[in-house]
């Protein structure tokens, strides 16, 4: 089937709407400001992110020899500055990249989590980019999902390959693309569950107003087509450049792994990467045949065939409202999404609790209360 008649069938207001939404997504990306997510979501996301921060800090401490502190600090600063670079695109346009995949490739995902989180915290506190209550959510998407996914893919593609192989570049590009796309999916889910869960008695959504059926395509499609491509481009170009002139930079991650605890580290890393990949892949696999998007489009079209626009509006509105607490939203396949979502949340909470327990049991040795900002 050719694409053109399909596009023509889409109502014009919908095209306009998605253009505006894509514009918004393309410009503010995943820096979720305060006010979009309910406080409960913010807290849940914070709790979900916590074990990864603990892991990152632990990694820092155990690998430390204190020498990693300046590396992480400088890398966080580097990520911040590199985000300011305008990447020239065809047609005279420019765009910014995240650099999260690059951080993961050079530092490894655990420490990249800390470096990116720090860049995010500085942005939120100091430049008003992204909310403060939403720091948990933003860090989860951009400092955890992005580096872990990118790194897993990069590793899978470039492992056991000579340092001058093209596969390093390919791995970097694919990793960057997939990492950011999947991160945008997570952000879309966070947005999309807001109107389902939090609204006033008369159905007015209290926070982000769009349901999953809108937020997922509106976030993921523009990211997959634009932002993730930019991320892939930048990651690949910089890795290619480093391969030519600064290969030691690409080996930092391997070097720091040579610690007395190599075995346990490798075991843990494999577990975390595996888990992250599993969690990430599960909903995608189920979503693909889940026809949430297509089903909705078809119904919308029949509705449009039967009546004129205002009624179409109402029909659509009927589809979209129905905010049931048990995710049981008719015709959207949201029951599916809700299911997967709770599965993901469940898994992550279990991991979090298990992790906190092991923390309680094993640690409390490294408690120095003094803090400082001086070097």
């Amino acid at each position, binding site marked *: 089937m050719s694409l053109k008649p399909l596009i023509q069938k889409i109502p014009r207001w919908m095209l306009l709407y998605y253009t505006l939404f894509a514009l918004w997504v393309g410009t503010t990306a995943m820096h979720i400001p*305060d006010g*979009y997510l309910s406080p409960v979501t913010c807290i849940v996301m914070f709790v979900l992110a916590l074990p990864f921060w603990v892991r990152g800090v632990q990694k820092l401490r155990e690998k430390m020899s204190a020498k990693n502190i300046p590396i992480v*600090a400088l890398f966080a600063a580097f990520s911040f500055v590199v985000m300011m*670079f305008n990447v020239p695109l*065809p047609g005279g346009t420019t765009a910014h990249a995240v650099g999260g995949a690059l951080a993961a490739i050079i530092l490894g995902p655990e420490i990249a989590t800390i470096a990116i989180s720090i860049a995010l915290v500085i942005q939120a506190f100091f430049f008003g980019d992204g909310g403060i209550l939403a720091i948990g959510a933003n860090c989860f998407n*951009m400092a955890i999902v992005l580096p872990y996914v990118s790194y897993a893919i990069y590793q899978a593609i470039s492992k056991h390959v000579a340092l001058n192989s093209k596969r390093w570049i390919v791995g970097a590009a694919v990793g960057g693309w997939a990492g950011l796309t999947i991160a945008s999916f997570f952000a879309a889910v966070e947005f999309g569950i807001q109107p389902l869960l939090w609204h006033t008695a*008369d159905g007015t959504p209290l926070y982000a107003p769009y349901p999953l059926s809108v937020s997922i395509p509106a976030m993921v499609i523009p990211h997959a087509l634009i932002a993730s491509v930019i991320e892939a481009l930048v990651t690949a170009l910089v890795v290619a450049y480093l391969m030519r002139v600064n290969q030691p930079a690409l080996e930092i991650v391997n070097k720091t792994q040579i610690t007395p605890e190599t075995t346990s580290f490798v075991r843990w890393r494999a577990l975390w990467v595996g888990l992250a990949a599993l969690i990430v892949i599960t909903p995608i696999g189920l979503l693909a045949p889940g026809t949430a998007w297509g089903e909705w489009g078809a119904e919308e079209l029949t509705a449009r065939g039967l009546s004129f626009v205002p009624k179409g509006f109402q029909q659509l509105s009927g589809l979209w409202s129905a905010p049931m607490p048990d995710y049981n939203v008719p015709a959207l396949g949201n029951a599916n999404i809700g299911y997967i979502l709770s599965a993901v949340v469940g898994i992550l909470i279990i991991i979090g609790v298990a992790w906190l327990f092991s923390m309680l049991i094993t640690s409390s040795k490294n408690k120095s209360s003094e803090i400082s900002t001086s070097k």
Partner: protein
Amino acid sequence: MSQSAQPSRSRSRSGFIERTLVDINKTLEQSIFAEKISRQKGLLQAVDPRLKVIAMIMLLFAVSLSHHLTVIAALYFCALALAAVSAVPLGFFIKRVWVFIPFFTGIIALPALFITPGPTLLSLPLGIVITRTGAMTALFLLLRVGTSVSFAVLFVLSTPWNNVLKAMGILRVPDVVVLVLGMSYRYIHLLLHIANDMFLSRKSRILRRMSGAEERRLMAATSGTLLGKSLQLSSEVYLAMESRGYRGYPRTMDRFRMYWFDWVAALVVSFVIAVSIWFGR
């Protein structure tokens, strides 16, 4: 980490260098301005930073929890009043919040006006209907984002970065992280200057139009070089730390003390937060 796809105003081929220079300088300017205000005399500047961190987070929660627009609006006016007594130029404060930051929130809120189901508020030509529910949703979003951003901006403008960091200690942020945060912030400025110099020197040597591929190579080479410089710098910084007696445990010099003024402020702000959460139910 934001990525923005902005259409270029001119088709000039070396535009990306200029745009990057503009972005870098704006960031530097912004942080210098914030630092300047945080050193002036004012109400918020006098309050203990630990109290400010907690109060800001609680206020953000109050804004976030409210189910009533009036409560959020009242909190916004509190923010305005605080700005007025804390040497923050009001015009700048309002502009910064309402023009720059949630500008795109307007775009996201707009379609909600039409597609949220509910009783009709306004019928426009072409069968477009603004629903009451839609208008409420859009207002909620705009007001909530604007007010939250206002409190965050107030906090940042009234607190020197060093004190923000120290105050994070009481939020149980680990010392390693606080140390890294402090160093990152410091080196962001150095790296911004370095990047600025790199782009300026490059720009001064460009004679002809560059092709897109050349531009991208240039961008990648600059990023890669900056990365190399950062790594080199990090080992120098480490040596510097070691030479000054760093042994893996950061230490801090001054501690904060709560004065009567801080207790009064704590009392007032707790009252405001309690009232707004109560009325916002």
